[in-house]
């Protein structure tokens, strides 16, 4: 066996609590995509949640405690990758600010944050993946999750990879860049407003004529799937990684 020019990048998968608990298949799809691209992937057992619910509820102390544990759990890796723009945004954009005034920790947090990427952006922008060998059939539409789009600048990357899936046709919905109304705890604290927003989104999804909805954040996907299914829609809802990895054995999010 010959030594590769550079050793395979060691990636720590931050699986995110929602994927861990609700949709493990997204995690395995992420692992497959990264392993196919030549990475060595591990998911450290000490991870739980990125702390965003605490952070957005104004609870700085608990957020910091969780951030410390997360940073420690992932310190050994070259990269930290999450199949979620929202969690990746939290780790990448918000962690360093939690440690303002604590130089040692701030530096540690910065080193950590520099290594963090959202899955699709990691595949395309870091690893240079331009296509996937997966096959599928039908018309898909893609929803831009807010954090991925506006905090991490992810817009073209998933569309490019989806376009490389044989048999899939991408059809854009109106206002793909507008929030689905999930917003973490917002969707239960202000359920009625959240509902008005996701109704609008569901109408745009249906209006696109697609038979499958893709996005890169499980929170948004569960919200949109929940609305579509409540309305009796038969549009399938999946995380984009499942389709890109060709791992669509599991029933779609919220069922058929």
């Amino acid at each position, binding site marked *: 066996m010959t030594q590769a020019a550079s050793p395979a990048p060691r990636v720590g998968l931050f*699986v995110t609590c929602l994927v861990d608990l609700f*949709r493990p*298949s997204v995690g395995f799809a992420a692992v497959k995509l990264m392993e196919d691209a030549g990475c060595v992937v591990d998911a450290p057992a000490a991870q739980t949640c990125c702390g965003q619910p605490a952070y957005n509820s104004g609870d700085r102390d608990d957020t910091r405690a969780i951030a410390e544990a997360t940073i420690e759990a992932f310190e050994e890796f070259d990269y930290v990758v999450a199949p979620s723009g929202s969690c990746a945004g939290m780790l990448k954009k918000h962690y360093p600010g939690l440690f303002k005034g604590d130089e040692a920790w701030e530096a540690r947090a910065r080193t950590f944050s520099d290594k963090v990427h959202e899955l699709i952006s990691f595949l395309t922008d870091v690893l240079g993946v331009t296509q996937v060998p997966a096959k599928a059939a039908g018309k898909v539409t893609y929803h831009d999750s807010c954090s991925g789009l506006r905090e991490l600048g992810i817009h073209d990357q998933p569309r490019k990879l989806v376009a490389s899936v044989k048999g899939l046709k991408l059809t854009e919905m109106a206002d793909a860049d*507008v929030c689905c109304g*999930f917003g973490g705890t*917002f969707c239960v604290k202000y359920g*009625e407003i959240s509902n008005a927003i996701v109704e609008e989104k569901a109408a745009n999804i249906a209006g696109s004529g697609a038979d499958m909805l893709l996005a890169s954040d499980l929170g948004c996907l569960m919200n949109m799937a929940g609305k579509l299914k409540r309305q009796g829609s038969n549009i399938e809802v999946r995380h984009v990684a499942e389709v890109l990895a060709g791992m669509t054995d599991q029933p779609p999010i*919220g069922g058929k």
Partner: protein
Amino acid sequence: MQITSPTFKANAHEALHDAQLQRALGNVRSGFIGKRAKAVDALPEFEELRDNAKTIKDHVLEHLDIYLEAYEKKVEDAGGKVHWAESAAEARGIILDICRMNNARTVTKGKSMLTEEIELNDFLEASGIQPIETDLGEYIIQLRGEHPSHIIAPAVHLNKDQVESDFRRVHTDFPKDRDLTEPEQLLSEARQVLRQKYFDADVGITGANFLIAETGTSIIVTNEGNGDLTQTLPRVHIVLASIEKVVPTLDDAAQILRVLARSATGQEMSVYTTLSTGPKRASDPDGPDEYHVILLDNGRSSMLGTEFQDALRCIRCGACMNHCPVYHAVGGHAYGWVYPGPIGAVLTPSLVGVDKAGHLPNASTFCGRCEAVCPMRIPLPKMMRHWREKEFERGLNPAVARYGLKFWLWFAKRPRLYRLTTYLAMPVMGLFGGRKRRYRFLPFAGGWVRHRDLPAPEGRTFMQQWRDRDTLKQDAHA
């Protein structure tokens, strides 16, 4: 005005079930967003101008005392008078004194959110002086006894048939059988009614988009020309401006003007950008004999040096609310005070207290669209989060949310226990999802399942399965 921010949820509920309002709110989505995007695309320097506009206002805030003093001196050199007001009550008092000295009976007003903030109209009326709003939208809502629901489109919550019935009710001098079905006819009637009011008014009150320290000039930006007539025809012109409106030079104002109209209405420039400096000169055949500026603080100086200072860069363009999904859903009145939308969610707690306005910074999905379009690059979500921190520190957020969060965090901070619990719980939860793979009902998740199904978990957690995979791998190597 009475603050109804504490009942935001109930306000929102009402708004969501108000069919008229919902129809009108469609105009916000269709009316502003595309036009702004087009205007921004047409100017390659737009992002650079945003950066510079931000830099200018940051510079102002770091030198605010010096520019205010320089501005004051220039106004006085030009024959104007500067008054300083710490509070709404002081500003109202100064305005009343000026009106009384001039025996004013009617006052015309250009569009000014600051006069809303100090509740000027009610006060003047109670003092026997009739205020007349001249901006078409403001005029309409004044007839209805309402407040603006948007900072640049005050009547955006209304439909034309509502305006028609108000005009029929109030404009009784017009023929009863006149046609008022088209917006054009409504506008024409309002123009006729208001034209005479400009001439009759003793005092004209406007706000200011900018105060120029270099020259002592106040600038207003309008499309209708109402503010301009308001400050030209009456004998006395009063400018009511908050202290952060000052900018150093005309050039600085020019920079910000380029992002203002584009962000607000998608225009290259608003129709009228009017610069006023002092009262009319000996050589002027028209213009006011007296020119007063009231510099109002009303809580702003207390925002300096805090995490909320950046909000003082706001130029009141309305882009944040035009792009806000929450504003689109519930409209401006639900926010319950003067300033709605994302900027209102930051300013209202600053100006009236977070104990009253606590809902506003919480009622956001943090989608970040407001910050993405804010011409002054105000980090609105970050500032809303700061308010949530203040609330959390003071224990103001609801107990259910607090305990729910604490429960989750207790596990999140204990990975082993978290693993064990979730290993046991998720497969059971998954089973309850049934063949449909979703729940329609679920205890403790009412906020969710009232409006949508909850997708069921697949079963065993990722970490559980990952551990199995690791074990398999190790076995294979052994």
